[in-house]
């Protein structure tokens, strides 16, 4: 769908997925949804449950001088976000390659 440089076409995209069979499309979308749901579950559990709701319980454990719940809220969850985005990009880009198609 990339346009040649300088093109200013704003026409709506046509039936751009026509290169895939209905079965391939269904499989592609299922894989995408499954991966997304798993990653979003982790996205929810780490900051919201570990970093907020149950942070008091975790604070008994220490990372250096820092209580664990506090550390997850201010450091750990951010590292998890990086990992989640990386997994999604690598898996989906691999899926695109396996399907043998351009984005």
């Amino acid at each position: 769908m990339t346009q040649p440089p300088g093109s200013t076409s704003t026409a709506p995209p046509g039936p751009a997925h026509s290169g895939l069979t209905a079965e391939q499309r269904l499989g592609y979308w299922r894989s995408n949804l499954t991966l997304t749901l798993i990653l979003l579950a982790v996205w929810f559990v780490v900051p919201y449950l570990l970093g907020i709701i149950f942070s008091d319980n975790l604070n008994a454990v220490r990372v250096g001088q820092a209580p664990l719940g506090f550390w997850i809220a201010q450091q750990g969850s951010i590292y998890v976000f990086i990992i989640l985005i990386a997994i999604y990009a690598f898996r989906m880009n691999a899926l695109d390659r396996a399907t043998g198609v351009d984005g």
Partner: protein
Amino acid sequence: MSVQVWTYILVALTFSLYIGIALATRVRDTRSFYIAGQGIPPLWNGMAIAADWMSAASFLSITGIIAFSGYDGSVYLMGWTGGYVLLALLIAPFLRRFGKFTVPDFVGDRYGSQALRALAALTAILISFVYVAGQMRGVGVVFSRFLNTDITTGVVIGVFLVFVYASLSGMKGITWTQVSQYIVLILAFIIPAAAISLQLSGNPIPQLGFLNIVGDLDNLQRELGFPAYTAQNKTNLDIFAITMALMVGTAGLPHVITRFYTTPTVQGARTSAIWAIVFISILYTTVPALAIFAKTNLIDSLENKPYASAPAWFKNWEKTSLVVFSDKNGDGLMQYRPGAAFLKTATGGNDFTKPDPANANELYIDNDILVLATPEVANLSPFLIALVAAGGLAAALSTASGLLITVSGAVAHDIYYKLVNPNASEGARLLAGRITVGVAAIAAGYFGINPPGFVAQVVALAFGLAAASFFPLLVLGIFDKRMNWQGAMAGLLLGLGFTLVYIINFTPSLGGTGAPADLFLGISTTGIGTVGMIINFVVAFAVSRLTPAPSAQVQELVESVRYPSGTLTEAQSH
């Protein structure tokens, strides 16, 4: 050399660099002007996203806000990074596959509704505008403090600079200035942070160093009567709602989403999301560490020290009323204690002529000075202090330029070209884009010089509105093929309307009269976008199921953003 000389040198060097990049990347077509010709490699786009994203507030204010709110400040750290997970998984690759110029472009085409396109454009303008005024103010504050100009001069210089490079080179030039601005701002942030970390904790890596002293800060705060630094003060529900509102708001900010349009491929959009979160996290994991160092330093250097021999940085910031001392007990010593040092004015500001007799706190310290003052507090070299000034300017300018292009896209592309004059020539559209950048820059400068009360509420407003509007609108547009314009419109109006009314009602500077006790479930204005988003989702879903399904053409469009195009490319065919 003095701090001021170093600041002049660094500001002159960096500003010349930004102008030089703009001259080298001048554009003559709208595709380059709005989406950089879709030729930005993922690594550099990730860096540009990071600079676009990290504003004057991220650089100057957040460390201070976290230093003064401790654990509760986590909402900003989790919210402004976790939003990228939503952006990367739910929005960016699909909007890149759609492949037009702006976010309202997608909304208008996806819902087949010019009314929604217009509403989306107006929302994008409102959100971006609220945001950009704060950036111009940031430029003014840095100039006034480091170069001894008045704030107005600083803002005028900032407006002129951004106008020149944004109108000349559009998104293409902005991308490469943002890349250079990221490098300036991140160096300016982590070098002083590493120096302070080494000084206070013996470890130059702030993310590890703070682990050695945070317990000591907890004890120090308890001794002075404050709650422990790592203790939670807001309710779980409020922290939850604020974090969620900031996350979904992040994923719905048009100026960030637009940056994902500039990569050559969908795969590139996904990869730039990885780079973006990495570059952003370098700053956001340093911020909480620096907050702890800064707070420790601040208490150590002021608490119970004689006012007469206050350090030089204290005297400097006193001139701008960003630190104010009032000797309530007349002992000549500065006592830093819980509570507000001064009474409030009718509009919610501080009245520095009236010390608050209800508590023993004698010091008012503005959030914004912590990053700017900390290198001085820690006695770092003049070069490093000047570098922080250049970094603050880079953060403000990079975000301002991204916002101006978004406003320009919404006005000149979505409203002028798509709605008013579809026959406009390429040249006329480009000229309209450049003029809009100029007008928006001047208007932003005006509000930077004469900040209305709402500038302080920028966070609540911009993120709340984005959370209640674009996030549901885009996610439903991609993931729910049955969603139609009736549902989207109803959800948008109710979600956005509720959020706007709630924030105004509970914000005195916007004329609100709501009492804090009446807050819905105790959720503060910054967190209410979460409720607005839920309203939007629920209403949109219900209305769409009671009205006809969208046209075959619209459903076809939804299909087309979900799946790859199915055409083998040269690179992938072997």
